[in-house]
């Protein structure tokens, strides 16, 4: 039999029929959020029903206010209407949706895996480009637009042409304080934001095996910033250990039956990849973006490029050519998002913040209410608060600036998020992407620093 990639295997298990250049694929999980309103409007206009309420799960995240002490802060009637609309769609179509008060609420790409809803070998879609995150569990997962969301709502299927496959092998060992976020930014630095367009990336190699599941989610999450809609890592023992016992993961004896299928998912030796890139993980440094695209990125020890094409981004960011990024003053900091809002991210921040105080406002929005509760139980939340951080509720918050949280025009924010586009965190905002530990370090120093030069505490997280 011809050797197949993990994507080819998942594809063939989900193929219903072919139609010329594309296949109709069955979708196992469809996640929706407040922003899915366009798609619900579409099916309403057509008079179509939701085909599979049991395969549709909703959560409020994009518009949710996260400041629990002043819940109305930043939230206007429009924002509250968006949250209400999701609840109404869930109730009228009969699917489960987790509203702001539900303990299962969180950012869709944090809470759905946490609940065990995303499983290896599944096809997972959501009207959000960071759906790539779920590939960390061995699912074929990708973001879709409102028309495709409407198509899935009405048919539980999607028309897709097979993607080209890129194998991204990371060997070697990541250094101290070097995270999956740094690795992702390092890859983007190498291949650019359009570097993997048209491809699905399978990550492999010893450095990938060494990543824990949360780190794998961070890496797969950032795959869209490389241009690929989807990134995937074959499930291994770590994946299975992480999944077992989660609320929606199968119980025995189903678990054992599922396991056999999951173990057979890994790409066969000799499977065909259209491209292969090999990276030495030991070369990855703490990365910081300087410009207005995730590819405007460099090691923290480097200087802002003096090239002419960087001119506009430099001007927007208020930077001089050749300026060192280390030592650059920041106005505020943010830790959270579907990229870096998980418990291990908060623990990494806590390790830096322990016994220190922030010099600029640091907002921390945990990736889910469960992450928030775990941070409270483990004492991580106390460390964050003692350092002067605002430990808020869970939502997309300052990553996308839709819930009323904004970085003011001209202000500079060290951020653990995924996009530093112009105005992403608010009109005129200046975003520097980096790992949670780097954000925490910047917050305590008031300037961008190399976290490797700081003494850090040990904060244990049971994974």
């Amino acid at each position: 039999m011809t050797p197949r990639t993990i994507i080819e295997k998942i594809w063939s298990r989900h193929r219903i029929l072919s139609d010329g250049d594309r296949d109709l694929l069955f979708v196992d999980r469809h996640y929706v959020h407040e922003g899915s309103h366009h798609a619900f409007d579409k099916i309403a206009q057509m008079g179509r029903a939701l085909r599979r309420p049991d395969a549709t799960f909703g959560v409020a995240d994009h518009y949710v206010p996260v400041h629990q002490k002043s819940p109305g802060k930043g939230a206007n009637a429009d924002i509250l209407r968006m949250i209400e609309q999701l609840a109404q769609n869930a109730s009228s179509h009969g699917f489960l949706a987790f509203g702001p008060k539900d303990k299962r609420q969180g950012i869709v790409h944090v809470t759905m895996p946490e609940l065990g809803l995303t499983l290896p070998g599944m096809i997972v879609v959501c009207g959000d480009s960071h759906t790539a995150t779920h590939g960390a569990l061995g699912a074929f997962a990708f973001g879709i637009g409102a028309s495709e969301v409407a198509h899935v709502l009405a048919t539980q299927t999607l028309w897709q042409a097979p993607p080209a496959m890129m194998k991204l092998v990371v060997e070697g060992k990541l250094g101290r304080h070097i995270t999956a976020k740094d690795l992702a930014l390092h890859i983007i630095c190498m291949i650019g934001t359009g570097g993997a367009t048209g491809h699905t990336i399978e990550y492999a190699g010893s450095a990938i095996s060494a990543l824990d599941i949360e780190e794998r989610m961070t890496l797969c999450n950032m795959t869209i910033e490389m241009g690929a809609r989807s990134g995937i890592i074959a499930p291994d023992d770590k994946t299975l250990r992480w999944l077992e016992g989660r609320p929606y993961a199968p119980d025995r004896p189903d678990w054992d039956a599922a396991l056999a299928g999951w173990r057979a998912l890994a790409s066969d030796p000799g499977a065909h990849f259209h491209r292969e890139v090999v990276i030495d993980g030991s070369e990855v440094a703490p990365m910081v973006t300087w410009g207005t695209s995730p590819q405007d990125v460099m090691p923290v020890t480097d200087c802002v490029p003096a090239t002419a094409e960087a001119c506009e981004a430099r001007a927007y960011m208020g930077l001089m050519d050749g300026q060192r990024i280390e030592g650059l003053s920041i106005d505020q900091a943010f830790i959270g998002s579907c990229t870096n809002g998980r418990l291990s991210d908060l623990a990494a921040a806590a390790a830096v913040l322990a016994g220190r105080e922030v010099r600029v406002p640091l907002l921390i929005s945990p990736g889910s209410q469960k992450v928030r509760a775990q941070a409270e139980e483990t004492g991580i939340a106390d460390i964050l608060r003692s350092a002067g951080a605002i430990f808020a509720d869970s939502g997309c918050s300052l990553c996308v600036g839709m819930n009323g949280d904004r970085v003011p025009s001209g202000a500079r924010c060290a951020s653990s998020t995924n996009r530093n586009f112009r105005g992403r965190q608010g009109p005129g905002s200046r975003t520097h992407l980096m790992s949670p530990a780097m954000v925490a370090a910047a917050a305590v120093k008031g300037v961008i620093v190399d976290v490797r030069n700081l003494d850090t505490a040990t904060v244990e997280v049971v994974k």
Partner: protein
Amino acid sequence: MTPFTTVEGQAIRLIENNIDTDQLIPARFMSRPRKNGYGDLLFYDLRRDAGGTFRPDFPINQHSGKEPFLIVGENFGCGSSREAAVYVLQDAGFRAIIATSFADIFRNNALKNGLLPVELSKTDYEALCAAHDAYPERSMQIKLHEQCVTLGTDSWAFTIAETSRQMLLTGMDEISYTLTHIDKITDFEIRYGAATPWGHGSGLGASDSVG
């Protein structure tokens, strides 16, 4: 959706590469229902200066709404999956976008809405830009039957996946088309559901008592 066969008119050109969806429409505007129109939100922040005044040097501010084509650089529409990035272009009057490459999700969203993503080779793109820059007032034609862009006596070929091209030409509703295969979908669901009972419906592990 409105079928796309042949469209004729002038083009506006933006030279930047990697124009992201947050530039096309900032996220804070996406709660608006589509029926209220999205045209005024196109490049909302980029077309204004800090004081909120329209920047005369920003090409979109010369767009009268009558020019159907937008020429952009590479990797157009990168970033989020927001289909509103297509709505803003369509509602502002654009029918086709010409680039050397498009981000995957943006391209899909455009095709599903009848906004034609025209991808040209680098050489053809440069020739078209040179021809356009020499006579920016001149009308171009984009013919989907022939899959070509014509400007004066020059013509450049592009390709669109065949099923997408047929959908664009006829303005077909894809959901209705898919549902003509409903029997096959149902058969698949029964077979697949039996093979993976834990994944769906009553077989799902969790109850409402979660958390």
